[in-house]
Protein backbone atom coordinates (compact mmCIF):
# COMPACT_ATOMS: atom_id res chain seq x y z
CA UNK A 1 0.00 0.00 0.00
CA UNK A 2 2.73 2.49 0.92
CA UNK A 3 3.88 3.61 -2.48
CA UNK A 4 4.83 7.17 -1.53
CA UNK A 5 7.80 8.00 0.62
CA UNK A 6 5.92 9.66 3.48
CA UNK A 7 6.67 9.66 7.21
CA UNK A 8 4.83 7.06 9.13
CA UNK A 9 1.90 8.23 11.28
CA UNK A 10 2.93 9.17 14.78
CA UNK A 11 1.85 6.66 17.41
CA UNK A 12 -0.78 8.15 19.78
CA UNK A 13 1.07 7.05 22.84
CA UNK A 14 4.06 9.30 22.30
CA UNK A 15 2.55 12.62 21.40
CA UNK A 16 -0.07 14.54 19.51
CA UNK A 17 -1.25 13.03 16.26
CA UNK A 18 0.24 14.64 13.20
CA UNK A 19 3.49 15.88 14.69
CA UNK A 20 6.74 14.11 14.09
CA UNK A 21 7.45 11.88 16.98
CA UNK A 22 10.90 13.34 17.53
CA UNK A 23 9.65 16.94 18.30
CA UNK A 24 6.39 16.29 20.16
CA UNK A 25 6.22 17.46 23.77
CA UNK A 26 4.91 15.00 26.29
CA UNK A 27 1.22 15.96 26.88
CA UNK A 28 1.64 16.50 30.60
CA UNK A 29 4.23 19.23 30.10
CA UNK A 30 2.08 21.09 27.55
CA UNK A 31 -0.88 21.21 29.89
CA UNK A 32 1.21 22.72 32.63
CA UNK A 33 2.21 25.60 30.43
CA UNK A 34 -1.10 26.34 28.72
CA UNK A 35 -3.95 25.79 31.15
CA UNK A 36 -4.92 27.87 34.12
CA UNK A 37 -7.89 27.42 36.37
CA UNK A 38 -10.18 30.17 37.69
CA UNK A 39 -13.84 30.75 38.41
CA UNK A 40 -16.16 31.78 35.60
CA UNK A 41 -17.15 34.88 37.53
CA UNK A 42 -13.58 36.08 37.72
CA UNK A 43 -12.96 35.36 34.06
CA UNK A 44 -16.10 37.10 32.78
CA UNK A 45 -15.70 40.09 35.06
CA UNK A 46 -12.08 40.44 34.05
CA UNK A 47 -13.09 40.46 30.41
CA UNK A 48 -15.97 42.87 30.87
CA UNK A 49 -14.09 45.34 32.98
CA UNK A 50 -11.17 45.56 30.58
CA UNK A 51 -13.09 45.86 27.33
CA UNK A 52 -15.72 48.50 27.98
CA UNK A 53 -17.10 50.02 24.80
CA UNK A 54 -18.22 53.56 25.56
CA UNK A 55 -21.19 55.24 23.95
CA UNK A 56 -20.73 59.02 24.30
CA UNK A 57 -24.01 60.77 25.01
CA UNK A 58 -22.56 64.26 24.91
CA UNK A 59 -24.91 67.23 25.07
CA UNK A 60 -22.72 69.97 26.51
CA UNK A 61 -19.22 70.98 27.55
CA UNK A 62 -18.51 67.80 29.55
CA UNK A 63 -18.39 66.03 26.19
CA UNK A 64 -15.34 68.14 25.34
CA UNK A 65 -13.64 66.63 28.38
CA UNK A 66 -14.53 63.23 27.02
CA UNK A 67 -12.68 64.11 23.82
CA UNK A 68 -9.69 64.99 25.94
CA UNK A 69 -10.04 61.72 27.80
CA UNK A 70 -9.91 59.54 24.69
CA UNK A 71 -7.17 61.65 23.15
CA UNK A 72 -3.52 60.79 23.41
CA UNK A 73 -2.76 62.88 26.49
CA UNK A 74 -5.07 61.08 28.91
CA UNK A 75 -5.65 58.04 26.71
CA UNK A 76 -8.57 55.96 27.87
CA UNK A 77 -7.15 53.14 25.72
CA UNK A 78 -4.92 52.24 28.65
CA UNK A 79 -8.04 50.97 30.40
CA UNK A 80 -9.30 48.97 27.44
CA UNK A 81 -12.13 51.41 26.72
CA UNK A 82 -10.84 53.22 23.69
CA UNK A 83 -13.27 51.73 21.20
CA UNK A 84 -15.89 54.49 21.18
CA UNK A 85 -19.04 53.32 19.41
CA UNK A 86 -21.80 55.56 18.14
CA UNK A 87 -24.41 52.84 18.13
CA UNK A 88 -25.91 51.85 21.47
CA UNK A 89 -26.20 48.27 20.24
CA UNK A 90 -22.42 48.01 20.10
CA UNK A 91 -21.78 49.57 23.49
CA UNK A 92 -22.00 48.64 27.13
CA UNK A 93 -20.91 51.89 28.78
CA UNK A 94 -23.04 54.98 28.35
CA UNK A 95 -21.27 58.22 29.20
CA UNK A 96 -23.87 60.93 29.76
CA UNK A 97 -21.86 64.13 29.51
CA UNK A 98 -23.97 67.24 29.60
CA UNK A 99 -27.29 68.86 30.41
CA UNK A 100 -30.35 66.67 29.84
CA UNK A 101 -33.57 68.54 29.21
CA UNK A 102 -37.06 67.17 29.59
CA UNK A 103 -37.31 67.20 25.81
CA UNK A 104 -34.17 65.05 25.63
CA UNK A 105 -35.25 62.62 28.36
CA UNK A 106 -37.21 60.11 26.23
CA UNK A 107 -34.35 59.97 23.73
CA UNK A 108 -31.82 59.20 26.46
CA UNK A 109 -34.08 56.55 27.92
CA UNK A 110 -34.69 54.93 24.56
CA UNK A 111 -31.00 54.79 23.66
CA UNK A 112 -30.21 53.29 27.06
CA UNK A 113 -32.85 50.64 26.42
CA UNK A 114 -31.22 49.80 23.10
CA UNK A 115 -27.89 48.96 24.75
CA UNK A 116 -27.09 45.32 25.31
CA UNK A 117 -26.90 44.10 28.88
CA UNK A 118 -24.87 44.24 31.01
CA UNK A 119 -24.79 47.98 30.54
CA UNK A 120 -23.24 50.65 32.67
CA UNK A 121 -23.79 54.40 32.96
CA UNK A 122 -21.37 57.10 34.02
CA UNK A 123 -22.99 60.43 34.82
CA UNK A 124 -20.51 63.18 34.03
CA UNK A 125 -20.61 66.59 35.63
CA UNK A 126 -23.01 68.63 37.70
CA UNK A 127 -25.75 68.88 35.05
CA UNK A 128 -26.13 65.17 34.39
CA UNK A 129 -25.84 64.30 38.10
CA UNK A 130 -28.24 66.86 39.52
CA UNK A 131 -29.30 69.41 36.92
CA UNK A 132 -26.42 71.62 38.02
CA UNK A 133 -27.34 75.26 38.24
CA UNK A 134 -30.15 74.73 35.74
CA UNK A 135 -32.75 74.46 38.47
CA UNK A 136 -35.48 75.46 36.05
CA UNK A 137 -38.48 74.41 34.03
CA UNK A 138 -36.53 72.70 31.24
CA UNK A 139 -33.74 70.63 32.82
CA UNK A 140 -34.00 67.16 34.32
CA UNK A 141 -32.74 67.33 37.90
CA UNK A 142 -30.39 64.37 37.57
CA UNK A 143 -30.43 61.58 34.99
CA UNK A 144 -30.92 58.99 37.73
CA UNK A 145 -34.59 59.93 37.54
CA UNK A 146 -34.61 58.27 34.11
CA UNK A 147 -31.88 55.62 34.00
CA UNK A 148 -29.77 53.86 36.65
CA UNK A 149 -26.33 55.38 37.15
CA UNK A 150 -23.26 53.41 38.20
CA UNK A 151 -20.73 56.18 38.78
CA UNK A 152 -21.24 59.90 39.28
CA UNK A 153 -18.52 62.44 38.51
CA UNK A 154 -18.82 65.90 40.02
CA UNK A 155 -17.39 69.03 38.49
CA UNK A 156 -18.36 71.61 35.95
CA UNK A 157 -16.83 70.13 33.88
CA UNK A 158 -14.73 67.45 35.63
CA UNK A 159 -11.03 67.07 34.92
CA UNK A 160 -10.04 64.09 32.77
CA UNK A 161 -8.34 62.61 35.82
CA UNK A 162 -11.75 62.45 37.52
CA UNK A 163 -13.04 60.74 34.42
CA UNK A 164 -10.27 58.15 34.61
CA UNK A 165 -11.04 57.63 38.29
CA UNK A 166 -14.68 56.98 37.41
CA UNK A 167 -13.73 54.40 34.79
CA UNK A 168 -11.44 52.67 37.29
CA UNK A 169 -14.18 52.66 39.92
CA UNK A 170 -16.55 51.17 37.40
CA UNK A 171 -13.98 48.51 36.60
CA UNK A 172 -13.78 47.66 40.29
CA UNK A 173 -17.55 47.43 40.44
CA UNK A 174 -17.67 45.11 37.43
CA UNK A 175 -14.95 42.91 38.91
CA UNK A 176 -17.10 42.54 42.02
CA UNK A 177 -20.14 41.45 40.07
CA UNK A 178 -21.15 37.82 39.64
CA UNK A 179 -22.01 36.58 36.18
CA UNK A 180 -23.36 33.30 37.53
CA UNK A 181 -25.67 34.96 40.03
CA UNK A 182 -26.99 37.51 37.50
CA UNK A 183 -27.69 34.74 35.05
CA UNK A 184 -29.57 32.71 37.64
CA UNK A 185 -31.68 35.74 38.55
CA UNK A 186 -32.39 36.52 34.93
CA UNK A 187 -33.96 33.10 34.44
CA UNK A 188 -36.62 33.85 37.02
CA UNK A 189 -37.51 37.41 36.20
CA UNK A 190 -36.53 40.08 33.82
CA UNK A 191 -34.89 42.80 35.82
CA UNK A 192 -36.83 46.03 35.60
CA UNK A 193 -35.04 49.13 36.69
CA UNK A 194 -36.50 52.57 37.07
Amino acid at each position, binding site marked *: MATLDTPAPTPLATGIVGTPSGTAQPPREGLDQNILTTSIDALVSWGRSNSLWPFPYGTACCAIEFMSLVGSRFDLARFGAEFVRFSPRHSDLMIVAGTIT*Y*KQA*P*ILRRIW*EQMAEPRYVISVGACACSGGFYD*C*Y*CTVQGIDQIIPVDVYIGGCPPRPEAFIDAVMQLQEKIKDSSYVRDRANAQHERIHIG
Partner: protein
Amino acid sequence: MSTSAARLQEPVVPATPEARKEFETRVFVLLQEKFGATLDPLDQWGLTAVLDRNRLHDAMQFLRDEPSLRLDMLLDTAGIDYLEYPGHDLPRFAVVYILKSMVFAAHRMRIKVRVEEDDANVPSIHDLYASADWQERETWDQYGIVFTGHPNLKRLLNHCDFVGHPLRKDYPAQRGQWLLANDPMIDQLEARLKAKGYQILESPAPTSPALEETSFGRKK
Protein backbone atom coordinates in the same frame (compact mmCIF):
# COMPACT_ATOMS: atom_id res chain seq x y z
CA MET B 1 -26.75 94.17 -4.33
CA SER B 2 -27.46 91.16 -2.23
CA THR B 3 -24.08 89.46 -2.54
CA SER B 4 -21.34 90.34 -0.15
CA ALA B 5 -19.00 91.18 -3.03
CA ALA B 6 -21.45 93.77 -4.34
CA ARG B 7 -21.97 95.15 -0.85
CA LEU B 8 -18.28 95.87 -0.56
CA GLN B 9 -18.58 98.29 -3.45
CA GLU B 10 -21.20 100.39 -1.67
CA PRO B 11 -20.08 103.43 0.27
CA VAL B 12 -19.56 102.53 3.90
CA VAL B 13 -21.50 104.66 6.36
CA PRO B 14 -19.63 104.36 9.64
CA ALA B 15 -21.66 103.88 12.80
CA THR B 16 -20.54 107.03 14.59
CA PRO B 17 -22.64 108.35 17.47
CA GLU B 18 -23.67 111.25 15.23
CA ALA B 19 -24.80 108.92 12.46
CA ARG B 20 -26.83 106.86 14.97
CA LYS B 21 -28.47 109.99 16.37
CA GLU B 22 -29.26 111.27 12.90
CA PHE B 23 -30.84 107.95 11.91
CA GLU B 24 -32.89 107.68 15.09
CA THR B 25 -34.28 111.18 14.73
CA ARG B 26 -35.10 110.67 11.06
CA VAL B 27 -36.71 107.26 11.34
CA PHE B 28 -38.81 108.21 14.35
CA VAL B 29 -40.26 111.23 12.55
CA LEU B 30 -41.16 109.00 9.62
CA LEU B 31 -42.78 106.39 11.84
CA GLN B 32 -44.64 109.05 13.78
CA GLU B 33 -46.08 110.62 10.64
CA LYS B 34 -46.93 107.41 8.80
CA PHE B 35 -47.84 104.95 11.55
CA GLY B 36 -48.48 106.96 14.70
CA ALA B 37 -45.45 105.66 16.59
CA THR B 38 -44.60 106.85 20.09
CA LEU B 39 -41.38 106.70 22.07
CA ASP B 40 -40.94 104.05 24.72
CA PRO B 41 -40.40 105.87 28.04
CA LEU B 42 -38.49 102.89 29.46
CA ASP B 43 -35.93 102.86 26.68
CA GLN B 44 -32.33 103.39 27.76
CA TRP B 45 -30.28 102.04 24.87
CA GLY B 46 -31.18 103.81 21.66
CA LEU B 47 -34.45 104.08 19.84
CA THR B 48 -37.51 101.99 20.64
CA ALA B 49 -40.64 103.00 18.76
CA VAL B 50 -43.97 101.75 20.12
CA LEU B 51 -46.51 100.85 17.46
CA ASP B 52 -50.11 99.77 17.42
CA ARG B 53 -50.28 96.14 16.37
CA ASN B 54 -52.64 96.94 13.48
CA ARG B 55 -49.95 99.12 11.91
CA LEU B 56 -47.10 96.70 12.63
CA HIS B 57 -47.01 94.81 9.35
CA ASP B 58 -47.13 97.96 7.18
CA ALA B 59 -44.50 99.64 9.32
CA MET B 60 -42.12 96.69 9.13
CA GLN B 61 -42.53 96.53 5.38
CA PHE B 62 -41.78 100.23 5.15
CA LEU B 63 -38.68 99.96 7.32
CA ARG B 64 -37.40 97.05 5.28
CA ASP B 65 -38.04 98.47 1.80
CA GLU B 66 -37.49 102.23 2.18
CA PRO B 67 -34.18 102.89 0.35
CA SER B 68 -32.99 105.44 2.90
CA LEU B 69 -33.57 103.09 5.85
CA ARG B 70 -32.98 99.53 4.62
CA LEU B 71 -33.58 97.76 7.95
CA ASP B 72 -33.36 94.45 6.18
CA MET B 73 -32.31 92.18 9.01
CA LEU B 74 -34.53 91.04 11.87
CA LEU B 75 -32.07 90.15 14.62
CA ASP B 76 -34.51 88.97 17.23
CA THR B 77 -38.10 88.88 18.37
CA ALA B 78 -38.60 88.86 22.10
CA GLY B 79 -41.53 88.83 24.46
CA ILE B 80 -41.69 90.83 27.66
CA ASP B 81 -43.94 90.14 30.62
CA TYR B 82 -44.46 93.28 32.70
CA LEU B 83 -46.36 91.52 35.46
CA GLU B 84 -45.25 93.04 38.79
CA TYR B 85 -42.94 95.43 36.99
CA PRO B 86 -42.58 98.45 39.32
CA GLY B 87 -44.89 101.30 38.36
CA HIS B 88 -46.17 99.63 35.21
CA ASP B 89 -49.80 100.36 34.33
CA LEU B 90 -49.63 99.63 30.61
CA PRO B 91 -50.68 96.28 29.02
CA ARG B 92 -49.03 93.23 30.53
CA PHE B 93 -47.17 91.89 27.48
CA ALA B 94 -44.97 93.43 24.83
CA VAL B 95 -43.26 92.05 21.76
CA VAL B 96 -39.99 93.66 20.72
CA TYR B 97 -38.47 93.39 17.25
CA ILE B 98 -34.78 94.23 16.94
CA LEU B 99 -33.88 95.51 13.49
CA LYS B 100 -30.57 96.18 11.83
CA SER B 101 -29.45 97.28 8.42
CA MET B 102 -26.94 95.26 6.45
CA VAL B 103 -26.15 98.37 4.36
CA PHE B 104 -25.95 101.24 6.84
CA ALA B 105 -23.92 100.37 9.91
CA ALA B 106 -25.56 103.07 12.03
CA HIS B 107 -29.09 101.86 11.34
CA ARG B 108 -30.44 99.78 14.15
CA MET B 109 -33.58 100.17 16.23
CA ARG B 110 -36.32 98.34 18.05
CA ILE B 111 -40.06 98.18 17.51
CA LYS B 112 -42.32 97.44 20.44
CA VAL B 113 -45.94 96.31 20.34
CA ARG B 114 -47.99 96.12 23.52
CA VAL B 115 -50.76 93.57 24.03
CA GLU B 116 -53.15 92.82 26.84
CA GLU B 117 -53.16 89.45 28.54
CA ASP B 118 -56.68 88.47 27.46
CA ASP B 119 -56.09 89.57 23.88
CA ALA B 120 -52.46 88.54 23.41
CA ASN B 121 -52.09 88.36 19.67
CA VAL B 122 -49.89 90.17 17.17
CA PRO B 123 -49.87 89.88 13.37
CA SER B 124 -47.09 87.67 12.06
CA ILE B 125 -44.35 89.16 9.92
CA HIS B 126 -42.90 85.86 8.72
CA ASP B 127 -43.64 86.92 5.13
CA LEU B 128 -41.36 89.95 5.49
CA TYR B 129 -38.48 88.40 7.41
CA ALA B 130 -37.75 84.68 7.09
CA SER B 131 -36.09 84.67 10.50
CA ALA B 132 -39.36 85.74 12.10
CA ASP B 133 -40.76 82.24 11.59
CA TRP B 134 -38.85 80.53 14.39
CA GLN B 135 -38.55 83.70 16.48
CA GLU B 136 -42.32 84.02 16.62
CA ARG B 137 -42.66 80.34 17.45
CA GLU B 138 -40.24 80.80 20.32
CA THR B 139 -42.05 83.86 21.61
CA TRP B 140 -45.36 82.01 21.47
CA ASP B 141 -43.81 79.01 23.20
CA GLN B 142 -42.29 81.00 26.04
CA TYR B 143 -44.87 83.78 26.53
CA GLY B 144 -48.09 82.54 24.96
CA ILE B 145 -48.40 85.48 22.60
CA VAL B 146 -50.23 84.35 19.44
CA PHE B 147 -48.90 85.50 16.08
CA THR B 148 -51.91 85.57 13.80
CA GLY B 149 -51.22 84.38 10.28
CA HIS B 150 -48.20 82.30 11.25
CA PRO B 151 -48.18 79.10 9.14
CA ASN B 152 -46.91 76.71 11.82
CA LEU B 153 -47.21 78.14 15.30
CA LYS B 154 -45.84 75.14 17.18
CA ARG B 155 -43.64 75.06 20.24
CA LEU B 156 -39.99 75.51 19.41
CA LEU B 157 -37.97 75.07 22.60
CA ASN B 158 -40.33 73.26 24.93
CA HIS B 159 -41.73 69.84 24.16
CA CYS B 160 -45.13 69.01 22.74
CA ASP B 161 -46.62 67.92 26.09
CA PHE B 162 -45.65 71.11 27.90
CA VAL B 163 -48.57 72.98 29.47
CA GLY B 164 -48.27 76.72 29.97
CA HIS B 165 -45.65 79.24 28.98
CA PRO B 166 -42.57 79.13 31.19
CA LEU B 167 -41.20 82.66 30.80
CA ARG B 168 -44.42 84.22 32.03
CA LYS B 169 -43.76 85.69 35.43
CA ASP B 170 -46.59 83.70 37.00
CA TYR B 171 -45.14 80.34 35.88
CA PRO B 172 -43.23 78.69 38.75
CA ALA B 173 -39.69 78.78 37.39
CA GLN B 174 -38.68 75.41 38.82
CA ARG B 175 -41.70 73.41 37.74
CA GLY B 176 -40.51 70.87 35.20
CA GLN B 177 -42.82 68.81 33.05
CA TRP B 178 -42.01 65.29 31.89
CA LEU B 179 -42.15 64.22 28.29
CA LEU B 180 -42.86 60.50 28.06
CA ALA B 181 -42.52 59.80 24.34
CA ASN B 182 -40.36 61.36 21.69
CA ASP B 183 -41.49 64.68 20.31
CA PRO B 184 -42.37 63.95 16.68
CA MET B 185 -40.72 66.40 14.33
CA ILE B 186 -40.86 64.51 11.05
CA ASP B 187 -43.44 66.91 9.60
CA GLN B 188 -41.07 69.86 9.98
CA LEU B 189 -38.17 67.82 8.61
CA GLU B 190 -40.08 66.80 5.51
CA ALA B 191 -41.36 70.31 4.89
CA ARG B 192 -37.81 71.58 5.09
CA LEU B 193 -36.50 68.94 2.72
CA LYS B 194 -39.26 69.71 0.24
CA ALA B 195 -38.49 73.41 0.46
CA LYS B 196 -34.91 72.61 -0.49
CA GLY B 197 -36.03 70.68 -3.55
CA TYR B 198 -35.78 67.14 -2.24
CA GLN B 199 -38.42 64.61 -3.12
CA ILE B 200 -39.90 62.49 -0.35
CA LEU B 201 -40.02 58.92 -1.65
CA GLU B 202 -41.20 57.21 1.49
CA SER B 203 -42.56 58.56 4.73
CA PRO B 204 -42.78 56.67 7.98
CA ALA B 205 -46.29 55.63 8.82
CA PRO B 206 -47.98 58.31 10.89
CA THR B 207 -47.79 57.27 14.52
CA SER B 208 -49.29 58.91 17.50
CA PRO B 209 -46.94 59.67 20.39
CA ALA B 210 -49.55 58.00 22.55
CA LEU B 211 -48.81 54.71 20.79
CA GLU B 212 -45.07 54.90 21.23
CA GLU B 213 -44.20 52.04 23.51
CA THR B 214 -41.32 52.31 25.88
CA SER B 215 -40.79 50.88 29.29
CA PHE B 216 -40.56 54.50 30.40
CA GLY B 217 -44.31 54.45 30.42
CA ARG B 218 -47.16 54.91 28.06
CA LYS B 219 -48.32 58.39 27.39
CA LYS B 220 -51.62 59.15 29.12
